[in-house]
């Protein structure tokens, strides 16, 4: 079992309900159960894959882990701290240790901001809280330039706008933004699903390189089982908000136990040959 110090992320009995729009003025609002009693642990330096189709709750799980929403029930413990119990300022400081990469490379970057501002945004919040002096503009620029080179772009790209880049390059910018505070955990919500196959390969390789280099942990959400198998040590399969199967990637993909997992595997095109 993972020892207590090594657990990076501990999700305990997480449930999330959303209220549906009321059908009429005085009727009671229905609700939808997006997540139902989800629990798992992620060790430092390892990667966990979350597999599911639409409606499985995987994006909700991502948002809850990132403390972008409060769960109806359950806890998200990051490095032992209950994220939802933290006062806002402490949470803001804690955020520099876990970051997110989103699915849509076109929507996740503000079209009106230059890459410098986009990539250095996570650093802005640490400016006021850090015990030393605030980071100067030049420091910000240097950090951003370094982050860009780490993802295979150039420092000269800092001055450009998102629309000057291709989808794959934008996703690299998003990864640079996630890396800039040197987090321990990166939550990647379908990070390569919107990319072409050859670009997907480049970005996946990059993510693997970065993991080795910086000792990152990934919470990797995807519907693509082959990608999850490549990137992740352990896997959780979600269906309709519940965990139906969990285990190591090898176990799940070679010896799936639950019928839904088996169905997902058999549905992969091209495999029946």
């Amino acid at each position: 079992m993972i020892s207590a110090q090594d657990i990076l992320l501990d999700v305990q009995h997480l449930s999330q309900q959303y209220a549906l729009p009321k059908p009429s003025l005085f009727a009671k609002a229905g609700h939808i159960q997006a997540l139902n009693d989800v629990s798992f642990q992620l060790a430092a330096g390892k990667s966990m894959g979350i597999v599911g189709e639409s409606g499985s709750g995987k994006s909700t799980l991502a948002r809850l882990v990132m403390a972008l929403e409060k769960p109806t029930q359950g806890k998200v413990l990051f490095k032992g701290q209950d994220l939802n119990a933290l006062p806002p300022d402490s949470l803001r400081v804690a955020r520099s240790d876990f970051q997110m990469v989103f699915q849509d490379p076109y929507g996740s970057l503000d079209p009106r901001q230059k890459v410098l501002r986009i990539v250095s945004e996570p650093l802005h919040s640490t400016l006021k809280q850090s015990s030393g002096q605030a980071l100067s503009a030049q420091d910000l620029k240097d950090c951003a330039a370094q982050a860009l080179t780490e993802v295979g772009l150039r420092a000269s790209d800092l001055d450009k706008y998102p629309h000057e880049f291709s989808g794959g390059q934008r996703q690299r910018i998003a990864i640079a933004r996630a890396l800039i505070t040197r987090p321990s955990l990166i939550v990647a919500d379908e990070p390569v699903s919107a990319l072409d196959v050859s670009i997907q390969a480049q970005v996946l390789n990059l993510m693997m390189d970065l993991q080795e280099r910086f000792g990152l942990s990934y919470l990797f959400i995807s519907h693509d089982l082959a990608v999850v198998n490549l990137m992740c040590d352990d896997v959780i399969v979600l269906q309709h908000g519940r965990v139906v199967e969990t285990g190591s990637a090898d176990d799940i993909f070679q010896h799936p136990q639950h019928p839904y997992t088996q169905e997902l595997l058999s549905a992969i095109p091209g495999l029946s040959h």
Partner: protein
Amino acid sequence: MTPAHNTPLLSVRNLRVALQTSHGQLEALRGVDFEMQRGETLGLIGESGCGKSLTALAIMGLLPDRATVSGSIALHGSELTQMSEDTLCTLRGARMAMIFQEPMTALNPLHPIWKQIAEPLQLHQGMDLVSAKARALELLDRVQLPRARERLDNYPHQLSGGQRQRVMISMALACQPDILIADEPTTALDVTVQKEVLALIRQLVAEDGMGLLLISHNLGLMRDQVERVMVMYGGAVVESAYTKALFERRLHPYTQGLFAAQPQLGLKRGTRLQTIAGNVPEIFNWPQGCAFADRCAYVKDSCRQALPPIELVPQMAHFKESQETDKPRQLAEHWVRCPEWQKLEAAA
């Protein structure tokens, strides 16, 4: 009157499409050639910007006004590029049909689904509303939409993605067209739904003896669904072969790169995928010759000057027997637009 046996269902010769953009007149398709026989399934695979959707739109005559088409597209021998818009309208929906990637935007949100299916029936077969509605129900049953009778009056937003795609398929098949073009029909769907919808398409195509042109970026899909595959890059088809043959060996550097870049289930965790160096060039940056030249390990000077000509690859021995002999030799066999294919074969 059935057309002569050797007139192909669809014949595309030297199809070129030029687009008027802010960077001037750019060639988006640079000479696409292929043929499709009745009942044949053909796949078009490529990444974004390669021109596969443009090819489909050109065949259907749905290109925007700022596009200029040259070359030949012949359906049952009739030249489509010369036809007036009115004539094309009589063919679209009736003889050739298309289904699109995003069913939510392809369906009219303000019309109930029976009405949208009835539309081609009324237009091309002159049915009245009542018979059209009845036929719509038959079609929905055929595409296995659960509880079709109750769903007739539903609006698109009341259906799930997979159900909407079934509605779109039934619209496409309403007039029993000769050719069905499916542009990424399942990309927006969950993988379990994808499997059902593709099986449905395969079944219906086989039952009706339609020709199917399936466009996708997913290699596995091609393997399951089509007999022949064409690989597109930079506005041209760079390799064309029977699916089985293509999965045995790839002879164009891009195709090899594409296959190598796909993550497979059996890979060990942490294996680096083989990537193709560089990026897909933007349409205004396409080189004079082969668009893959800047990323190719085998590039020669002649590659940069002009688009490499089609080179026939001798079929592997066990394929020769299974081929039909009346297919035009040149276009049915394995061919590739690369002068160095023999080197690739040796290296493989």
